[in-house]
């Protein structure tokens, strides 16, 4: 044990003081978890290769158009469940944010899922990203894999 002697020969255990400091500075139970999850979400939002503001603005316009298109496609299908999509194209495996059944934000890792659970629409011509519809229980999440989560829609399946 790393140990030093103070003036009156009181043993001063470095390890013990370090442990006291760690305990005294211990964060609240859920704080670390909340911050870590938030960082991933924030990274999804800001970590894409759109460093300059103009690219961000351009991306926002493109994504907005893609979402508007997705919503238009969804409307006629209301109450009928997810929109059947075309065959699966390649989608990047990454982290995405969805809302779960209770409405809370939830981070998910996108993986290939069976057809009934995962459908997507073919991208409109000229759109760089594929708009994805993901059926998770009673939650239908609409987002763009290139742009991260944008529209979160609850609906029956």
């Amino acid at each position, binding site marked *: 044990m790393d140990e*030093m002697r*103070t*003036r*009156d020969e*009181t043993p*001063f255990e*470095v390890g013990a*003081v*370090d442990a*006291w*400091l*760690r*305990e*005294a*500075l*211990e*964060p*609240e*139970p859920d*704080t*670390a*978890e909340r*911050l*870590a999850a*938030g*960082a*991933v979400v*924030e*990274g999804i939002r*800001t*970590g*894409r*290769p759109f460093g300059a503001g103009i690219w961000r603005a351009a991306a926002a316009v493109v994504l907005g158009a893609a979402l508007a298109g997705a919503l238009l496609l969804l409307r006629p299908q209301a109450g009928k469940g997810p929109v059947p999509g075309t065959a699966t194209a390649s989608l990047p495996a990454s*982290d995405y944010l969805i809302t779960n059944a209770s409405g809370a934000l939830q*981070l998910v890792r996108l993986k290939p899922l069976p057809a009934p659970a995962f459908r997507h629409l073919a991208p409109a011509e000229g759109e760089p990203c594929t708009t994805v519809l993901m059926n998770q229980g009673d939650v239908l999440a609409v987002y763009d894999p290139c742009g991260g989560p944008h529209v979160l829609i609850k609906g029956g399946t």
Partner: protein
Amino acid sequence: MELEATLTAITPGLLRLALGLTGNRHDAEDLVQEALAALVSYWRTKGPPESPTAFGCTVVRRQALRSGRRSRRTATLDETAERADGKPPPDDSAFHAMHLEHALRALNGLEPGDREAILLVAAGGLKVEEAADVLAISVPAFKMRISRARRRLAAAMETDDGRDEDERRDAV
């Protein structure tokens, strides 16, 4: 190396470090949030850094210095002495709680450089080499600094002990 797992693993240490530097839980959370966002951004563009913990500690320290939050630490020291769950310590842990408060009080009395050295290792969980890198000094220089810091911490705790004893005696 998994990003999510790494974030989960390093966040508690970053929070301890930030709280030690700022003395304020809200400011500490802000600093850690900035550090984690910087880490995620770096990770996604350049891949994982050599030591994510050291990366995060560097950002936390730099942000703390930049924002000048360290100057407020003494005013909010009482907050760090509170238990994380906000409850008063039970009677049977009064002695233990006294030691925690004691260590924090002594830590806050140290010079900023000494305080940083101890916090990086004890709170942030960095290795000596990583801590030296964060402070941009050589490993031998860091070893000297932390050794000196711990001696001063020991002396401060001893002084504090004497003062507590005097106060107890006066009270009787």
